[in-house]
């Protein structure tokens, strides 16, 4: 008997995986390909051992999958489902490596019958609110750009409030938060939420955040309640809903002016980033200074232009003066003795340079100088 060729060639190469490599690689593929998702199926072979974890199979007409629900989630779900119950299950697929099995890790489970009743009630409320225009895009108000005082309607027990405070500290530390504590699930939550939302209208605030941390779908009932939705719509300042839930949108989300996925996201949407606002203020300051210096530059340029005109005027004046001076100079020139000499006259001067004007100034034999136009000539009186 000979081995088929592909196997022998595979053995010769390095393409042989260990089982561990195979299941690990499958697990990576599955982990990387699926997020949380809802499936619908019938529960079979449900086991709830003392560990608190639940193990069961979900199947439909065509296929089945093994399911595990860890204790934390099983406790929240209440009692283990009776075999044959049809359910919606939220979870993600996973490969159980050591057994090489595909399984569905369930985090939430709801009987379809219950969902059916809830769904019908929800649709009725939704229709009523819609009829009254509470979902209209036209009534959505813009959020204030720089809210100084913000109301927060939420439970003080959950992470929602501390998440909002944490975001406020980094983004917008000048804000004042007014917390209106309210139950957000269970008995009395609806009435408390309505009362808290009404109180918001008695506060001097610019914005209202209403919400809760993540909860199971059935825990969101208060945010689908008609009275709560109407109280939210009646809040006089813009509202942000923050009903932390990854898959569901509540009616309160639809009524609020802005919907955020989580309380942190609500705070990020509602509060500006102080660093950006400081930059804006800095830019405005720079433009303010720039505007003024430009203005003073214009003024000084105008002054300079005025100065230039004055200088030009002065030059005209000076030129005129110079002309006048030239004319006067010409006249003076005409009167100058040198000009007289030019015309042929001569001036007698004695040795001391004094002008000899009269006969008595001349003594026979005296030497004197005759100044003519181009120099002096020695002369003697006879």
């Amino acid at each position: 008997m000979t081995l088929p060729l592909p196997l022998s060639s595979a053995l010769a190469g390095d393409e042989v995986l260990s089982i561990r490599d195979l299941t690990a690689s499958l697990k990576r593929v599955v982990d990387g390909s699926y997020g949380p998702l809802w499936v619908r199926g019938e529960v079979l072979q449900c086991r709830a051992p003392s560990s608190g974890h639940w193990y069961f199979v979900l199947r439909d007409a065509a296929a089945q999958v093994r399911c595990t629900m860890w204790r934390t989630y099983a406790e929240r779900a209440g009692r283990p489902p009776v075999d044959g119950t049809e359910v919606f299950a939220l979870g993600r697929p996973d490969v159980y490596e050591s057994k090489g099995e595909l399984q569905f890790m369930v985090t939430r489970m709801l009987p379809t019958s219950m969902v059916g009743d809830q769904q019908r009630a929800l649709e009725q409320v939704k229709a009523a609110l819609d009829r009254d225009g509470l979902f209209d895009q036209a009534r959505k108000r813009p959020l204030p750009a720089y809210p100084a005082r913000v109301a927060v309607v939420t439970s003080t027990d959950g992470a929602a409030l501390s998440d909002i405070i944490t975001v406020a500290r980094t983004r917008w530390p000048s804000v004042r938060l007014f917390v209106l504590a309210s139950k957000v699930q269970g008995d009395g939550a609806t009435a408390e939420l309505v009362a808290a939302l009404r109180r918001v209208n008695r506060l001097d605030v610019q914005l209202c955040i209403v919400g809760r941390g993540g909860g199971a779908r059935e825990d969101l009932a208060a945010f689908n309640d008609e009275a709560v939705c109407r109280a939210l719509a009646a809040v006089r300042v813009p509202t942000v809903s923050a009903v932390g839930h990854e898959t569901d949108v509540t009616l309160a989300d639809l009524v609020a002016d802005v919907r955020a996925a989580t309380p942190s996201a609500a705070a990020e949407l509602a509060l500006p980033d102080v660093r950006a606002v400081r930059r804006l203020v800095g830019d405005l300051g720079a433009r303010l200074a720039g505007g003024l210096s430009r203005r003073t530059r214009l003024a000084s340029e105008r002054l300079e232009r005025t100065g230039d005109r004055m200088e030009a005027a002065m030059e005209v004046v000076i030129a005129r003066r110079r002309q006048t001076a030239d004319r006067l100079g010409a006249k003076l020139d005409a009167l100058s003795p040198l000009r007289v000499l030019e015309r042929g006259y001569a001036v007698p001067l004695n040795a001391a340079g004094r002008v000899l004007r009269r006969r008595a100034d001349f003594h026979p034999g005296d030497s004197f100088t005759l100044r003519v136009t181009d120099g002096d000539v020695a002369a003697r009186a006879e």
Partner: protein
Amino acid sequence: MSEPSAVAGQAASGPTLAEELARLEEIVRRLEADDLDLDGALALFEQGVACLRSARERLSAAEVRVRTVLEDANGTLRLGKLDG
């Protein structure tokens, strides 16, 4: 601890930061426009500096203030600290 200024209608109302920044932008815009004499520009500049200072002060607040709002038996709203 009671801070009645939290209740609507009782707050000391000055301009909000949004109003102040809008005013500052208006001032800068006018200062950057051409139809302004030096005296007018100086007056605007002074107003702008006041807005700027006030905006900076608002933004310098160091710590978020958190108060709980409680309603007492006769329906009056009171403020409390978060932890009791």
